[in-house]
């Protein structure tokens, strides 16, 4: 049972365009920075790994002490990587595709509160 989870969508240029801290545990004050650091470092591995496999869901690509990084690599520009700590990223990512606004400009930040609410609901569902 995951207690804390971080979910980040990374654009093609490795820029985080969406970030959500989800989880049932009380959030540590430094968690955002910590999670960001771990997920950012995991990009090194993801970029190596993404080209070696045809799988889209890369489960447990990296492990940082007790935190496990899983990645869902998409085939579109809009959401190249969905990286999550302790989240069933595959499920969330697949459903999240359906949430995207068709007018969304690839590469820009996702600021839609609707999207945020939905993602958090999804996370609650699968956590």
């Amino acid at each position, binding site marked *: 049972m995951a207690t804390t989870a971080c979910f980040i969508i990374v*654009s093609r240029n490795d*820029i985080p365009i969406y970030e959500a801290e989800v989880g049932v545990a009380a959030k540590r004050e430094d968690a955002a*920075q910590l999670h960001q650091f771990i997920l950012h470092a995991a990009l090194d591995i993801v970029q*190596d790994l993404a080209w070696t496999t045809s799988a889209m869901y890369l489960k447990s690509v990296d492990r940082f*002490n007790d*935190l496990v990084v899983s990645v869902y690599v998409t085939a579109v520009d809009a959401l190249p990587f969905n990286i999550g700590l302790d989240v069933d990223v595959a499920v969330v990512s697949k459903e999240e595709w359906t949430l995207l606004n068709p007018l969304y400009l690839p590469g820009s930040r996702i600021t839609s509160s609707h999207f945020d609410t939905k993602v958090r609901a999804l996370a609650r569902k699968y956590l």
Partner: protein
Amino acid sequence: MQNTLLNQTKESLQLSPKFEVSACGVGEFSVGHNNSNNRTMKGNNGYLVTMGAPSPRSRPACTCSNRPGSVRCARHGYVVPSERMKKRVASKEILRRALTPPPPRRCEKRSEEIRFFMNDSDTTQLATTYDKLTCVGFISSIVVSMRNNTSLARKEERHIHMGGANITSSLLVFVFVVVNAAVSMANFLAQFQSIKSTSDRLVISVEDVSDLWPAVKPAFEARLPFKQGSLNNKTRNPVLVEKLPAEFILTTDSRLRSRFPQEQLLFWFREPYATIVLVTCEDLDEFKTILKPRLKLIVQNDEREWFIVFVSRAHPANDKASAMAKKVYAKLEVEFNTKKRERCCKYDIHLPESNFWEDLESKIMECIRNTLDKRVQFYEEEIRKLSEQRLMPVWNFCNFFILKESLAFMFEMAHLHDDALREYDELELCYIETVNNTGKQRDFGGADHGDDQAALLNPGNKALTQIVQDDSFREFEFRQYLFACQSKLLFKLNRLFEVASRGYSFIISFSKSLALHERILPFCMRETWVVTACLALIDAILSNYNDGLMAPDIEKRFFHLLGDLYSLARVKFMRLAYLIGYGTEIERSPVNSAALSLLSWPKPAVWPSVPADASAEVLEKEKVILQTTSRTKPFGIQRKPLPLEPTVLLREANRRRASLSAGNAFETFDGRQGITEGSGFDASTRMSPSQKVPPSSIPRTNSSPGNFDGSIDRPMRLAEIFVAAEHALKKTISSQELLKSLSSSEEFEQKYLELTKGAADNYHRSLWKRHGVVLDGEIAAVSFKHGHFDQAAKSYEKVCALYSGEGWQDLLAEVLPNLAECQKILNDQAGYLLSCVRLLSLDEGLFLNEERQAFQSELVRLAHSELKDPVPLDVSSLITFSGNPGPPLELCDRDPGTLSVTVWSGFPDDITLDSINLTLVPTSSVDEGAKALQSSTPNVLHPGRNTITLDLPPQKPGSYVLGVLTGQIGQLRFRSHSFSKIGPADTDDFMSYEKPAKPILKVLRPRALVDLDAAVSSPLLTNERQWIGILVRPINYSLKGAVLYIDTGPGLEIDDSHVIEMETYAGVSENDDNKVQKDGAQIDSLNYEKKVERLTLHNGKIEFPNWASDTPSIIWVLVRAMSDMLSRGSSSVTTRRESIVDAMRTIALNLEFGVYHNQIFERTLAVHFTYPFYVTTRVTDKCNDGTLLLQVILHSEVKATLTIYDAWLDLQHGFIHNGQTEGRPSSSLFPLVISPTSKAGILFSICLGKTNGEEDRKQQESILNIKYGISGDRTIGAHPPVMDESTKVDGARQELIFKNAITLQRPVLDPCLAVGFLPLPSDGLRVGQLVKMQWRVERLKDLDEKEVPEQNDEVLYEVKANSGNWMIAGRKRGHVSLSPKQGARIIISVLCMPLVAGYVRPPHLGLPDVDEANVSCKPAGPHLVCVLPPALSSSFCIPVNS
């Protein structure tokens, strides 16, 4: 009781050893006993029988069915050989049986010994006397069987009858034996290890029958090691071994001789792999009688791989001896060679045959190969059996280990490293499985001194005997041992990457094991072990590493693993350092925080306490803690430092102290004294900024509150914890190097740097830039601390570039202030400014507003005061801009405008920009440079959205997007090239580079904005004041404030006296027809809104009223076309020659319009003027009385109705009116109305006559006077002329006079002279041929002196000819005398030559002095003559004959 037991034991021991295998089918017993018990027991009757009466080895029994024959055992697949088959079938079973000593004897012996041991309790003797391995295996097998039987017996006792023995008691004995036997394994292992260490190469035994070895030894040993040998690996595939070391040992050597047969079997891997029998013989008889029987004796043992080397000592020169040697050798071959295998070779000691050595080596290799195969097979079989039993309770890993490692060692000796490695892998797997499953693990190990240093690369670190405890291996040592063996083989195979990858995962998994046993291990043993393990592994790998040997992608992963190893060591090292108080030396960066804060504290059973005599050290530590001031961040950033601790150390350490009951007391204390929760630097750092109190108020002494009285239960203070940990670590750590690294903060830092650099370098080499760069940042932090700001700035820049490039702002916010600080110290103003801008452009939530204001004030301060030279700076992330939403601003060509731009400011406060420039970039044309728009007035940008307007000069047609925003703040030249998103005020969104640029301005291509045209199409009246209409039609463009300049051309003047009228154009333009027709109401409204306004002309210009700005309108201007030419009539027979140009007048218009009158439209209108009539005349009839009826036909030239009121004719000289009409037609005709473009005729009756008046004489032309009126519309054309206001009389008929000149000719038949063109020669004219043109001039009348006043008889003539067609040879002009009498005639001849062929006009003879009317020409009109081409010339044709 003892005796009984022994008896039972004896009985039990007499069980056949085969029973172990057959009974190992545990499943059969345990599962099958429910339903098929009877059957099973029936099937196993054989066992019971065998058990009761062990038979001597009369015939070999299958391990399963015990029945010889050709039927294969269902389980093992082996055929139990009968006596008959035994010879032929060399199966595994035969081999096994041959190797296995006969069981009954051993059992008996063993039982005796057991009895002995039971009496004497001397277990060691038992172990050393007999074959322990087999013994143990045997016993354990029995125990297994018995246990199964026991369980069975307990459940179904009626089926089990073990000879009336008490099963339980016998079991006890067996277990006892097993335990003791297992203990003996320690000694056995020692032997095994010593054998392993002494024998490192294959042994080849030499059976020296004829004492030849000393003679041949040097030559034989010179061949070692063998090269290019081919061996079979475990899967029976041939493997080429490059270099195979081996050793020749005589069979008489003590090393081989002294061994017991059982020992030989046990350590079979060290037994000879081949036997060379060295013989010589010089006599056939000797061979037959002595040598052959002896050899037969030697080689009868089939186990050995042997071959015979016949050494010939005969000298080559001695033929006889050689021949004899050959004969003997031939005999030898016959005796010992078989069809399948040659076992003999001949060695001439004096002159070896060329292929002897190859032959020898191949034979040796063959033997080795065969032996190896056999032994591998044997070991495999044994291992397989053991591994099948591995889940049984009594199973002993030692046996398995020895067998497995023997096999591995054998492979290693044979240089089959791959196979050896595989054995070790399997061994490890089996170990992990059994250790975890059986729960037999008794001691983890690791408690010895020096165990903290990892021995994962040194297999000989500890003797195996030390590892074994009871019957199990201690995990701590054994797993390291296994890894050491594996890594040794991997190094031999040069598989460094595998060493690294296996090593890393081994360290990780082993570290977890250590964590499980942390409570029994010394304090921080785990951390120490990991550090030393990583470093040892790195050292070993790097010392074996050769650059360029690995494939690129493998190498990349290799470096990544090295980086991981360094990183792991670094983290653990930092943890150790933190525990002894060097936490202040560690940078609280994201990487360190992430690594350490997620790493739990050590969990010793008891947290170390402060030694009694350490008070001085405690004081020292406290002093250090007190002196340590947390580094103040630049800009006064109050950002909370990142944690390095998973939980507060103070609490953790005290909680784990045994003397405090699970921290209850401390919890109480904690609740009461919340402020000390994070004592030490923890406390000061973990406070949130809002709660932050001045540091002085924090009790930094870390001493406990006064309530605690220093008893043993008193919680430790932080300094005490550090000191206690230090002391404990000193006890734990045996590595001097590590101790030294932890001895002082300087040493710590050095090691820390070394590890960090190692990790960073390797990550960089593995292209993991994020890992590498982040660690560079850590190096930078150390550089910064020591004042090496230059280096620090460089590294920090890399880190910042990485984070900002990828937009990870939380991380950037940690590092960027440090970079800014470096740049500030280094006086890198540009860099510092940029860092300020970057800080400002980070997410607002990352810094407090005050902090952001501090960044801004720093920026403004620098820009306005400190900068001497302008500094360019990119502020794209901070100031963004965009055009206004909606469609782009559209401008017509050459129109200026005002552009409104939205600028987002990311500054926390208002900021004054001294100037702003904005470039416009045309989207289409590439060559066009960007156009800069300037707003030089200072603009104040408020935080968030601002709107700035810029003047837009006229641009070239095209579409423009916003380019770059530049500007100045003091000396700071900023530049922003990004576009912000239109919408919510998230100004930080500067990542939309990919967004297609939206056009902000569209300048349309030049087009007609307005049209000026003449409103009237038909001619106006010349010489009258006429309205000329100018149609002004704006084309989707406003004419507001337009000015029209009118300039008339020659012959036209504008009447200044009258105003100018302007009215809306009633007719809807063609383009708008469709549009307007759809909406009938609009038409009505247009009609109703018709406006008329009178304007005045000032200096030739008219200003448009406002209403005319959008609607088509007509300007009526009063003009008069001036013409002093009199209208001339013409004869009806001649065609009318009219020149439109004469009647044309031009009017130049210049319309200036647009917002700044920047648009100019010029047009010159042509207006057609005309006289109202065109007059033609003809004489309709010549009456006999000389009266001529002159018909005057009036063609109406205007589109207006003309009314003729009166007409009269003033005749020229020579004509007079006939009758009394005075030149007027009948007055009853008038008024005559002539419709537009119709004709009317008036008849005058005149006659030739003479008037006497002088005036009449002068008048050469007749003048037709017509008084007429006109009624027309100015919108169509000619209309009644506008009268002066003063002269205008209401209701008065406006009569105009039209005068027309008519030339009347005398009658045609009344000329004075006749000119006739005489016919040309009949042969025609030719080009180039002279021809005489002749005209005859004849006087038809007497020369009237009055009419021809000049000469009397001289007539001037002139010949006119087209000079291109004719060359005139004679005079062209001259006088000829012609008699004034009627009938006088003369012929004028002129020589001409035609120049061109064809029909040409002949020369014309004219008489200039005589009026045309007086000359009658024949032919009357122009005519043509035919000119032939020139005749062919034959003058150049010379006859051939001549």
